[in-house]
């Protein structure tokens, strides 16, 4: 550290106490040479005059091994600072006994201690504080938030991208529902009639609805209990229930297994009023057979049934956010709507 006019006295004290190195002493002496105007009350021994000497009193003030009048201020200050050893405290006590006139001076030293006024406070602490992000809480919050995000993402994927198909049927008025048929959502479908020969090799035909669904050939037989009755070896159209008046189309989703079981029974369960659709779920439809259904040769023909080619209307509808593919199919006056989530 450089010796300056602000700290040279401390260096001199260190010099007096023998705490300076040779280089430091040389630096101090150079400083004093360069600053001859410094405190004139400096003890004479610090001057550069080789002839100068200390008086006995002055010299004695440089010794601190015991207390005396020359160095009492140092001891009094050290006493207030709490720097005195036990031995020095005893020396101080003895000194005061021998010199009671200095007691008042020591008392003044004891008073020369500053006491903070605690009523003085800094009023704008809030202006100094900084916002704190509780990392611990923040990390816990992040952890839960991450789990929640994962759950939501998983649910979203599961819900929107599952293979499940929402099938929704919209009803229109049932009109001229001529028969039953199979609907295939992506093929133009025409119900078929089977033509066969009886035992007398006569051509006979009976309405046997067939449709290819994937690799399956599905057919529906009609039975004698069906209405209207046909020739015995012709399986009539199933009895149909008139529901047109009420426009109440009953739509029941049947399991494939149930339908197959019904059809496999002996005798087969009369197909009453149910038909099979292939819109992912087999559905039972209540059908209406109008009176004007014509018979041709006693047989129900496709024409007489009024079955028309089904025009599949595939229409992609939906809001982008919903990712629906809606297929609208109309069959014999009945509209079906099949909605598949993407």
């Amino acid at each position, binding site marked *: 550290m450089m010796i300056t006019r602000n700290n040279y006295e401390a260096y001199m004290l260190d010099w007096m106490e023998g705490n300076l190195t040779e280089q430091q002493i040389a630096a101090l002496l150079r400083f004093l040479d360069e600053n001859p105007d410094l405190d004139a009350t400096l003890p004479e021994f610090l001057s550069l005059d080789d002839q100068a000497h200390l008086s006995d009193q002055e010299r004695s003030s440089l010794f601190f091994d015991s207390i005396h009048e020359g160095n009492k201020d140092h001891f009094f*200050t050290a006493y207030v600072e709490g720097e005195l050893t036990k031995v020095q405290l005893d020396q101080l006590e003895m000194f005061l006994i021998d010199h009671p006139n200095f007691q008042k001076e020591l008392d003044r030293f004891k008073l020369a201690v500053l006491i903070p006024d605690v009523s003085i406070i800094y009023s704008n602490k809030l202006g100094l504080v900084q916002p704190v992000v509780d990392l611990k809480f923040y990390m816990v919050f992040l952890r839960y938030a991450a789990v929640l995000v994962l759950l939501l993402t998983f649910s979203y994927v599961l819900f929107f991208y599952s293979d499940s198909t929402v099938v929704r049927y919209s009803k229109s008025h049932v009109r001229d529902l001529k028969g039953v048929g199979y609907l295939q959502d992506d093929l133009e479908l025409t119900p078929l009639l089977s033509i066969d020969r009886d035992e007398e090799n006569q051509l006979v035909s009976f309405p046997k609805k067939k449709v290819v669904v994937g690799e399956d050939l599905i057919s529906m037989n009609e039975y004698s209990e069906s209405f209207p009755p046909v020739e015995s070896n012709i399986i009539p159209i199933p009895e149909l229930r008139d529901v047109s008046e009420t426009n109440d189309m009953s739509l029941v989703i049947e399991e494939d297994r149930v339908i197959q079981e019904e059809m496999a029974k002996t005798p087969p369960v009369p197909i009453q009023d149910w038909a099979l659709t292939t819109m992912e779920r087999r559905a039972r439809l209540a059908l209406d057979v109008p009176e004007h259904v014509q018979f041709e040769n006693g047989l129900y023909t496709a024409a007489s049934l009024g079955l028309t080619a089904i025009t599949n209307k595939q229409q992609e509808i939906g809001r982008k956010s919903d990712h629906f593919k809606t297929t609208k199919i109309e069959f014999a006056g009945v509209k079906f709507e099949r909605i598949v989530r993407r």
Partner: protein
Amino acid sequence: MNAKEYNNLVYQQSDGLYRFALRLARDEESAKDLVQMAFEKVWIKCEEIQAEKGKPYLFRTLYNAFIDQSRRKKHDRIDDEYSLSNVSQPSHDLKEVLHMALNQLPDIQKSAILLRDYEGYNYQEIGEVLNLSESQVKVYIFRARKHLQLFIGKIEAVL
């Protein structure tokens, strides 16, 4: 030092720092500015400062800011000589007497004794704040203490 530790420093040290600044600057607005400046500097460097070093860093920053301010204002009160001429009315109140005596001390001595008595710092800690050696701190405190004592004696003589 994180934000939480910094805020603890604000709540724990701002009053003491303000009292220290008030005694140095002898003006409330200047003292508040010094406190604000000191905390701002600590906040800017808070990541470099260890929490346990926050207090001495604060006081050192404030002291240096005060010295810079004083030099700019050319407010030089380096004067080892106490004088009763500045005392308009001698006071019976010891606290006022001490404050009068304190105001006559050079800034370095005033700072050292304030840190000693107000904050309870030892010589080494004061040396860290004021950039002095331990022995230099001791010298300044001894001189300050003697000045206060002499001032009290003179007041008593006047009274």
